[in-house]
């Protein structure tokens, strides 16, 4: 199992396995509403013309390149959820972390994930790491998490 950080993989090139062409680079991630799994990688373009690679089309998330199954897999964004992610409205890094008790515990500094599954394992904050099973939702205002101890 390989664990990577969002900050380390930023800018890593994305190559299509079938054509060996570079089709983009890692610019960001589209996460599920709970912030626990990667749904797609933002690999090129901005705004409405942003190009994303669905996680299901990643054949290997390697140390030097992300391998896509086919050069046909990348697609322009298709819904508001993806749009808010590529625009940076709903993103992990820099987002405020709020407990379900209404306590602000800092901002997200980095995110650890498993390269095989795209599962988020831990979120790094100024006050230390948070295990992914505490994550409740990722929105434009906050990453909502379960408090560690009773507040």
């Amino acid at each position, binding site marked *: 199992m390989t664990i990577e950080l969002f900050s380390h993989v930023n800018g890593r090139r994305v190559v299509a396995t079938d054509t060996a062409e570079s089709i983009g680079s890692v610019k960001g991630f589209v996460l599920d509403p709970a912030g626990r799994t990667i749904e797609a990688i933002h690999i090129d373009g901005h705004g409405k013309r942003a190009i994303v690679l669905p996680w299901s089309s990643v054949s290997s998330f390697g140390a030097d390149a992300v391998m896509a199954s086919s050069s046909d897999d990348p697609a322009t964004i298709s819904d508001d959820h993806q749009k808010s992610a590529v625009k940076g409205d709903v993103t992990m890094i820099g987002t405020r972390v709020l407990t379900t008790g*209404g306590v602000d515990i800092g901002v997200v500094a980095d995110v650890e994930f498993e390269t095989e599954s795209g599962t988020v394992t831990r979120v790094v904050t100024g006050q230390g790491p948070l295990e992914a099973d505490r994550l409740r*939702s990722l929105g434009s205002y906050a990453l909502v998490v379960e408090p560690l101890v*009773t507040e």
Partner: protein
Amino acid sequence: MNLVRARDVMGLPVVSVASGEDVAEVRDVVYDGEAHRLIGFTLNKRGRFAGRLKAVLAAGSVSAIGPDAVMVDAESAIDDDAAGDADLRDLGTARPVLGNRVLSADGSDLGEVVSVILSTGDAPCAVGYEVKTEGRSDTSFVPISAQMALSGDNLVLPVEATDFVRNDLAGFGAAIASYRSPVLEGGQ
């Protein structure tokens, strides 16, 4: 128990645990002095040019009050037909409490009610009043009791509550925790 002044809740964002979105902002705290009960909150829209929201938030729909946000399970908590909203819209029997004089059972005037104190965390409720005494710069905190009598302008603090009066909010939180049980029946 962590406590907060009702006025410090004003302006806090209302955040959905389900979506991580800020769905509203607290405009005002609605409180019934007669029943010593937190009814809920009126709301503003979020954003710089935001105005009042028609939707309201009943106390029962709040999942937690914290120092940085009021949390709700989902945006549906502020729907127009959410449970408890009728109480918030019809305040016919609710009685204001700010400005009331607080008298001890032995007849000393403790001062004027300047704020309602709420418990934070889940199931928030009103637990006390902040009282300002003339000629003193600090304030004191008196617990809400089911036995507390209220007229148009006076609140009478029962004898058994006198031991739990404190001069600081943190100390009052600890005092309230041990005074709690009769308060909750009357305060919820």
